[in-house]
């Protein structure tokens, strides 16, 4: 019997780590402890369960027999205490668990900022399956809801509520949607879609003051920083998430906002590691944030840590940044860095097609014309191509000329690159010609 690795948390980071551990090593004893659900599910899909696209069963990426077959031991329970001296975990419902190595993958929890009324019935965040069940109850037969927080979970919640015919007032602190990430043009583009196509009532530059309730402790309205009262039967608090580290705070493991780790995910205590949403890098990878709370980064961290635990000499080394989302009907993909405000040495090109709900936002270096990043709305792009272009430091000219290689829209869709490269040429006095898609280049993106 090999060493016993225990992972706390059966989300994407913890489960990916467990799966790769098993792939790389057949001896290790692997246990994953999770109290939220018995089996791994896709958190990003919870909204679809609420909207009736799927049943909860469908959100499970692996059939239930998968874990036993791969000899990954699942413990459906909550950890109540970590004893770093005796390498032991106390569980809520079962006996204690000893570990040789411990991986913390405890994820996040929704933020609350101590607003008066935030604990009334009908006020909640959305993160866990339990939150979803609560939301199901809280929104049964209601007419009006308020969502607070202009980020990804907020817009998801707005879409969920809207799908049930509930009228949504959406409070956003910044002056544009997802303002801490998206440039204003992009944020406004999404905001217009929400407003015009889906009748979401957006309130920019508006913060939540307090939440009013009735004698039965049910929410009745919210009061905004502008002194307005908005009547409602439900309040969704989606003002970000923070690392879920209550459990770790009682121990000697060092924490700040999250569990502090180096690039090998090592905490200050030997044999204890942290990955995913709950980890905070003391010395982050260049250009990246110390805490990354994204599905993809959780997955990459899980994979990397599995290698480290199997003796490979690697550290967290994510490639160019990428992310994606969907805002009601508009798909969003991003590759590289598109800052919400341009840096002094950067330039940008924006092409917008309001009618077809498409927008391309490119950022490049002013002097060298090196391509830095793209936000794409309503046009699908090939990840591998952009990853190669960013890795190789291609120029904006090169990227635009070869844009059709990167087009990932379904067949028969119009190729928009001819339009926006035209616009780019006019704006910057260039004469870039779009080349036809080449399978040779697509299959060997790093070659040219």
């Amino acid at each position, binding site marked *: 019997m090999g060493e016993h690795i225990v992972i706390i948390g059966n989300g994407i980071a913890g489960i990916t780590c467990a799966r790769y551990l098993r792939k790389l090593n057949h001896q290790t004893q692997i246990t994953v402890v999770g109290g939220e659900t018995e089996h791994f599910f896709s958190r990003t899909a919870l909204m679809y369960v609420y909207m009736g696209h799927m049943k909860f069963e469908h959100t499970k990426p692996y059939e239930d027999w998968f874990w036993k077959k791969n000899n990954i031991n699942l413990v459906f329970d909550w950890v109540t205490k970590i004893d770093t001296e005796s390498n032991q975990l106390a569980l809520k419902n079962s006996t204690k668990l000893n570990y040789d190595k411990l991986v913390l993958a405890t994820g996040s929890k929704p933020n609350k900022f101590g607003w008066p009324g935030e604990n009334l019935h009908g006020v909640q965040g959305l993160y866990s399956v339990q939150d979803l069940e609560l939301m199901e109850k809280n929104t049964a037969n209601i007419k009006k809801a308020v969502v607070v927080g202009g980020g990804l979970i907020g817009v998801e919640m707005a879409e969920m509520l809207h799908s049930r015919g509930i009228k949504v007032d959406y409070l956003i602190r910044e002056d544009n949607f997802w303002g801490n990430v998206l440039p204003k043009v992009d944020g406004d583009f999404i905001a217009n879609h929400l407003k015009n*196509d889906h009748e979401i009532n957006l309130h920019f530059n508006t913060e939540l003051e307090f939440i009013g309730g009735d004698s039965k402790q049910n929410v009745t309205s919210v009061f905004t920083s502008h002194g307005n009262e908005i009547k409602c039967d439900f309040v969704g608090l989606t003002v970000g998430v923070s690392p879920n580290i209550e459990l770790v705070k009682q121990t000697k493991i060092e924490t700040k906002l999250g569990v502090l780790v180096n690039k090998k995910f090592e905490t200050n205590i030997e044999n204890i590691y942290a990955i995913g949403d709950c980890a905070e890098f003391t010395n982050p990878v260049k250009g990246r944030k110390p805490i990354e709370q994204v599905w993809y980064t959780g997955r990459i961290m899980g994979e990397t840590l599995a290698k480290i635990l199997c003796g490979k000499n690697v550290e967290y080394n994510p490639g160019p940044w990428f992310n994606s989302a969907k805002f009601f009907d508009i798909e969003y*993909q991003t590759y590289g860095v598109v800052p919400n405000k341009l840096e002094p040495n950067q330039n940008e090109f924006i092409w917008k097609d309001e009618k077809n709900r498409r927008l391309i936002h490119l950022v490049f270096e002013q002097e060298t014309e090196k391509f830095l990043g793209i936000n794409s709305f309503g046009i699908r792009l090939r990840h591998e191509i952009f990853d190669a272009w960013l890795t190789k430091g291609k120029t904006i000219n090169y990227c635009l000329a070869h844009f059709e290689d990167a087009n990932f829209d379904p067949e028969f869709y119009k190729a928009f690159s001819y339009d926006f490269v035209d616009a780019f040429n006019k704006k910057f006095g260039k004469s870039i010609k779009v080349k036809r898609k080449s399978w040779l280049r697509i299959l060997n993106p790093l070659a040219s």
Partner: protein
Amino acid sequence: MKHLKTIGLVLFLLGLITFVSSLFVGSFSIKQSELNTLLNENEKQNLLESFQTEIADKNFASAFEFTNKITSVFSAKNEELKTLQQWDKVMWNSPQEFALPIVKSAAQGSIKNNKTFWLLITIGLCCFGGLIFILPDLNLYKTKGVKNENVFKSSIKSQGIVGIITGAFLISFYILLYWFPSYIVSWVLIVDPISELLSGNPASQWFLYGLLYTLIMLVMGIRMLIKYRGNKYQIFRTISVMFFQTAFAFLIPEILVRLNQPYMDFKNIWPLDYDFFFQWNLDQLIASGGIGIFMLVWGILLFAIAVPVFTYFYGKRWYCSWVCGCGGLAETMGDPFRQLSNKTLKAWKIERISIHSVLVFAVLMTIATLYSYFSGEYQILGVETSSIQKTYGFLIGSAFAGVVGTGFYPLMGNRMWCRFGCPLAGYIGIIQKFKSKFRITTNGGQCISCGNCSTYCEMGIDVRWYAQRGQNIVRSSCVGCGVCSAVCPRGVLKLENGSEIKRVNDNPILIGDKNIQVIHETF
């Protein structure tokens, strides 16, 4: 708009109720002279005597009663012949099949006299109501995104009670159509005017089926066009299946009959078209001169050349989700049920055994058929060729393709036949798997494992399994409907015909971790 939808639904249901009730309308009696002609045509002279005493000029209250009488007289006579050991006179065909034309000409009453009126208040009303139910979606959903809201909250779409009733209704329809056609004589009568208009002949139960099939595909095709109107691939594909059904499967064969040519659906390919090489078909084609020979060569070229060539360039989809009638019905009428297919590994294992067994069965049956055709022997290895054909026709042609294939839409998804039974799909699938440019490309590391793709895969492919590990999807069963790509919220999937190189990647990498990128480059 929502009210309009409700009105549409009510009209549709009224049409449906009238349609079903019509089976109980009218009485039946047949004149002696008419009976004589019909029995003559059917070469059933030996029944004449008992039919004259027991059936002619008598009045029967319903098609059921009348049919039962015919079958009992038929069986009694047959028993008698068997007892007398007059084997040359014993009748071998099904009394049900033989009863239909007699029951049809015996029909009296409202339907017989007002066929067009009945056509309008049954099938016509259903189509009209259906369209009134479907069209408001254009206005209700202003944006073009695919809306799968509340699919799993709808009883009919999630195996609820309405779904089970619908399934039971469809299954009953197929059982009546295949084995008790004379019970549904009212329906056959109703569509007479259209049949006469097209081919000049009165309708058979098969004309009824073809007409209903086409109308359902057209109405539900419009639904499909509205639902996926933001997606050009879906629009083209849907128009394509609507066209091939209407023109190739329905109109052209009827017109051929009108021109005294053999009936032929030019897009139906052996071995799906399992009786293509049956003696009666070959004889008929050869006897029809030039056009018959053309049809024969065309049919052979389709499966021998067109299938491998088109499948190499475009994958299975060129047929299964763009041309095929079974596929066309599944994609239109079946679209509301696509999420019900079973995605488990176990189902996949059963599927592989099942579909390839049917393919082997079809090939062996055809070998036996051709052997008998050329050698003149009735048997092959001690088994009668005709009994192999009958067994195949009953088990696969009728029970599997019809009753299970369509009847099970609301119970187990819309591609039961295509996935577990269709021998042509099995054959095309082998080519798609091993020699084709088609694949569903997975977009690097963008998958969030949400499961929309797998849920809405009608073929029960666990698309997510591949997508979340960055692997292209190359599966023999994939019909290339493109819905996985359409419902993906993150732009992860793309159907494309690309280079064969790197089409299959058995050791996929997920983009994002530069530690593996290095290994990838040398690979």
